[in-house]
């Protein structure tokens, strides 16, 4: 089966800066794929390479088997939901949604019907006559989504789609996007710097750093089995243990990662001093000092909490200390 999107040895340089530095990637049809990474890691450039706003310095991007090297954005079977939504301020919501059909020469009546249908799909029926400036951030986001979906793209690209929304709305939109993707069966590729968002929405996640993909896999893979210290640190907030410490704790002479929620207070464990405490609602985060190494622990509600400066004993289940590849 051909993949929906394929990157072969793609590089993108801006002068001396290698924004994308040798990316190989294959996104299957129907996948909800997340590109996760800090800002400047090359994930947005990769999205723009798929959309055609940037051309690779070398390598090849193909969509459903067709090489996109000389194909301009307006001939690619993909559509984008922009980070700032990029709604046209001089057009009302219906004309925004129908824009793609209008430039394609669709008749007015047909594109009006299609736009209203798309607005219904994103739960904004009856909003067609409003101007984008009269909508809330969440509503604009839905209009941007409708405007892209009305074109029936083979791949939908989403650039930090939920970045500008507040927490509650963001969680709601996450569920809706997931449901929408499942219903339409379109391949979704979305870019985010929020690991929670990537893990909760995507079937597969590629973690970017310095223009390269450092790990690609299922959310469980990158969360529980990070291959490099960077992934362990960026996806969630693992405790990173250096090789010396890992060795002393019974692992090999490699980096290892320990999830804060895996750390428990157990008599007879490793001695550590409490240096800080933060109440988080569902749990309490303890900052500990273990022989000069900072360890954070998430203790569930109901645990007896030690005081600042107290010495405690900590431990974890044998499988929870995740050993990483020796070379990273």
């Amino acid at each position: 089966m051909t993949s929906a999107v394929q990157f072969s040895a793609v590089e993108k340089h801006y002068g001396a800066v290698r924004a994308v530095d040798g990316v190989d990637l294959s996104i299957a049809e129907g996948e909800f794929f997340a590109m996760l990474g800090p800002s400047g890691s090359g994930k947005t450039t990769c999205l723009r390479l798929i959309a055609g706003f940037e051309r690779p310095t070398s390598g090849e991007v193909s969509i459903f088997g067709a090489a996109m090297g000389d194909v301009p954005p307006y001939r690619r079977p993909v559509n984008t939901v922009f980070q700032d939504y990029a709604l046209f301020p001089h057009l009302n919501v219906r004309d925004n949604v129908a824009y793609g059909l209008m430039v394609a020469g669709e008749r007015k009546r047909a594109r009006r019907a299609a736009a209203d249908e798309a607005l219904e799909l994103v739960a904004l029926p009856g909003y067609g006559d409003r101007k984008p400036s009269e909508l809330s951030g969440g509503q604009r986001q839905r209009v941007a989504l409708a405007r892209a979906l009305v074109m029936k793209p083979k791949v939908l690209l989403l650039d930090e789609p939920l970045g500008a929304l507040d927490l509650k709305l963001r969680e709601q939109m996450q569920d809706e996007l997931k449901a929408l993707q499942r219903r339409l069966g379109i391949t979704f590729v979305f870019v985010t710097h929020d690991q929670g968002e990537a893990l909760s929405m995507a079937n597969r996640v590629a973690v970017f750093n310095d223009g390269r993909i450092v790990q690609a896999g299922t959310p469980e893979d990158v969360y529980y089995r990070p291959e490099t210290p960077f992934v362990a640190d960026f996806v969630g907030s693992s405790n990173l243990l250096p090789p010396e410490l890992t060795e002393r704790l019974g692992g090999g002479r490699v980096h290892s990662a320990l999830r804060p929620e895996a750390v428990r207070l157990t008599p007879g464990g490793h001695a550590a001093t409490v240096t800080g405490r933060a109440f988080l609602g569902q749990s309490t985060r303890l900052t500990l000092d273990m022989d000069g190494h900072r360890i954070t622990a998430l203790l569930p509600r109901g645990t007896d909490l030690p005081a600042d400066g107290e010495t405690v004993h900590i431990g974890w289940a044998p499988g929870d200390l995740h050993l990483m590849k020796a070379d990273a």
Partner: protein
Amino acid sequence: MTTLDLSAAPRRDAAGLSERVSDALWRRPRLLIALLVLPSLAWLGIVYLGSLFALLAQSFFSIDEFSGQIRYELTLRTYAELFRAHNLDIVFRTVAMAASVTIAAAIVAFPIAYYAARYATGRWKAVFYLGVMLPLWSSYLVKVYAWKLILAKEGILNWAFESVGLMWLMDAYLSLPGIGGNSLSVSWTGTFLVFLYVWLPFMILPVQAALERVPPSMLEASGDLGARPSQTLCHVLIPLALPGIIAGSIFTFSLTLGDYIVPQIVGTSARMIGQAVYQYQGTAGNIPLAAAFAVVPILIMMVYLAVAKRKGAFDAL
């Protein structure tokens, strides 16, 4: 551990006169606003609107045809005179010139402004601003006379056409009725070119400012939705730049409507409104008719602004 010494805080009670004035103004914010606005309001009200009213009043007087004295009684006779054929010609000629200069300026300015807004950075942006503003630093008279030399029969333009063997083209153009003439410097086209040159910066700058406010993602979104670049230009870029184009056209249109120096130095003997005003209030001593002529551009601009407002050109302001 270091701690902040809080025993010696800086003095905060009002002592000097300026501090007491600041405090008093803080307590009465409206007084401050009044003090800031009053001088400019006085200028606008008395000097500007006052003289405008005096001008309007003059146009409702008339001149005694035998004695040449102004009769100070209200009448519409002067306006009736404005509607005589040779005076109407002046109005139409001027409006046609202003309209063609405005349209040409918009067409010439757009690509320049687009380049500056979208692609020029750092040093090239400075070069752009310098290039646009530099002509504004030298006297307008000098520039117009320079153009007279460029466009003259023995001027550099004819010389250039001659040297590349295209003089026949220039002669063919100059033989066209209406826009041609003996040479470009005494033709309608010459007046047009000079107007276009002197007012172009007033079109480029607002269009550039408007284009700068169009987020790049807007153009990408248009392309993403399947619009070819020409469609993006028509459906997104020009509509979003329209406030800037309208703002620029207000400058080019009104400046051309009122100008009396350019058509006097470069062009035909057919007069424009500005020249008519100049001659009637000067040599002819017919201040009422000069005033009536001066009212015409004001009315035209009012209609123009009303139409622009209805078209939504000011919605984005």
